[in-house]
């Protein structure tokens, strides 16, 4: 009998701890599938964040390092500079990457560090109880913006992919989503491109993945997917913001 579906080798058999309807799990699977496809699992070192995905070291079936909150790009830099021929990626949330770790990601990109980053934007701090993230939408209610994010007090949501696409060392920067099967397939392609950029030694690559947090958004999983599509995508357009061939800004 032909196998039509199985767990990627790059995932362990440990059950995910994520809440029902959380799309972190889908994103893990995509990363693992691409690692398998590229045949680099045994050459891979992954770096995990602090956030809901702090346990990625238990899920990815490769050598893993747990980094301090926001510092994964610096840790990945240290690893890559010791083992330039290994494949090194970071997996980070939007509090980790876009709040406390903004300096580390910008400078890893500026150096054209040969690492790839999976950046999970769920518009909130999941792990610590649903506080405002730099990516929280205007008007969005969180535990620290109980009346909705007010730009006068809290400023504007940060568009990380667009910002990093202006940095010369960043060679491939894309934003994708996982709210529908078509989008999942596209996300997988973008992750593959990003990883290939590193393997070809072209420079820094990052894929921002729009993701759900039904628990802290206070929604059902289905409502959360809808909210992502109708509220997040208008502010965070999907597309490739820079690619090695076409240069900068190419979104759909």
């Amino acid at each position, binding site marked *: 009998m032909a196998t039509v579906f199985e767990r990627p080798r790059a995932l362990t058999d440990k059950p995910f701890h994520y809440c029902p309807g959380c799309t972190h799990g889908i994103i893990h699977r995509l990363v693992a599938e691409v690692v398998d496809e590229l045949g680099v*699992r*045994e*050459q*891979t*070192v992954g*770096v995990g964040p602090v956030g809901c995905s*702090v346990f990625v*070291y238990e899920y990815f*079936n*490769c*050598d*893993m*390092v*747990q*980094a*301090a909150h926001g*510092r994964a790009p*610096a*840790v*990945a*830099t*240290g*690893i*890559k*500079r*010791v*083992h330039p021929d*290994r*494949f090194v990626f970071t997996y980070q949330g939007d509090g980790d990457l876009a709040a406390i770790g903004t*300096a*580390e990601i*910008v*400078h890893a990109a500026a150096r054209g560090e040969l690492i790839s980053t999976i950046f999970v934007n769920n518009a909130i701090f999941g792990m610590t109880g649903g506080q405002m993230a730099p990516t929280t939408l205007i008007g969005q209610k969180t535990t620290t913006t109980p009346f909705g994010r007010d730009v006068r007090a809290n400023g504007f949501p940060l568009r990380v992919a667009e910002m990093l696409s202006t940095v010369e060392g960043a060679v491939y920067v894309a934003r994708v989503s996982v709210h529908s099967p078509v989008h999942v397939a596209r996300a997988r392609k973008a992750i593959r491109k990003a990883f290939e950029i590193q393997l070809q030694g072209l420079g820094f690559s990052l894929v921002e993945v729009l993701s759900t947090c039904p628990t802290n958004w206070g929604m059902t999983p289905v409502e959360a997917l809808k909210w992502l599509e109708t509220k997040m995508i208008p502010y965070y357009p999907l597309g490739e913001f820079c690619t090695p061939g076409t240069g900068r800004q190419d979104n759909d």
Partner: protein
Amino acid sequence: MPRTLMKGNEAFGEGAIRAGCRHFFGYPITPQSEVPHYLAKRLPECGGVFLQAESETASINMAYGAAAAGARVLTSSSSPGISLMQEGLSYLVGSELPCVVVNVMRGGPGLGNIAPAQADYYQAVKGGGHGDYRVMVLAPASVQEIIELMETAFELADQYRNPVMVLGDGILGQMMEPVDLDGEGISSIPSKPWAVTGTQGRTTRNIVNSMCIVPEENEAANLRLANKYNKIRQNEQRWEEYLVNDAEVILVAFGTLARVVKAVADRARDEGIRAGVIRPVTLWPFPDQAFEKVIKFAAKRFLVVELNLGQMLEDVRLAVNGRRPVHFYGRPGGVVPTVREVMERLKQTSEVTDGGDRI
């Protein structure tokens, strides 16, 4: 290179290279900037990596990554930058990673100044970051000793899988002295089967992690550290003694200040006061054993001299444990005392009581 003239800060770099370190990550700060200047030139010559990071927070985390990957790695900074590294140091300890950190101390608190000080003693020897931990701390007093202790630092770091700090001050970093660079330095470093390298055929994954979510397991991890620290306390105390055998008054100082204090002991002896010096070389583990020894000899009183408000003073008091008066003389903020000043203070010390002496 045989005998050559070298600046202290350059010696931190050369000592690291001779110890087999080929990776440096750092952010400029006075009075240690010659460390990165030197290594920016030297590391590429020997096939190493020099990287100027965007901050000390990034430096220590790059060092964390390089250490996890199995390299001998160095970062260096001065006081404010070392403060920024404390979270990273705590993670290095939690993940049991070896790493060497140089702190060429300057005057604080805050921005303070760039003059020599020893005010980061507490931060260095008591842990510094969050959690219940220690880093080993070595305090060289000459440019030659920097070269030697850098090698010791990397060896201790690998042996115990714990960060080691080499603590200097602005005088030591900036002064030039002749050094003997015998031999070639280390050619191979210990194998690190726990390092992340990609599994590459290995059947088990290597995971570098300081997270321990179950309290009982985290307690066990802490107790494992405690065990390691007890071993270090037993085996790694280092100090230098000067004229202690018949000394009735023992001066205690570390780093370059110990050189001033040795001159004080000489002057005191010229004036008929039998003085000696204990210079702790390891600040953690603190060399308690040195104090047991001199108390058995002739020591009647101690005078601790520091470039701060009295920090090592507390460790000396713990070592002496009330058996003798422990006096203090300190100049904080970047001021270095003269031999004459310390001499005057020495003459005022009582054999009966220190009265909880402080500045």
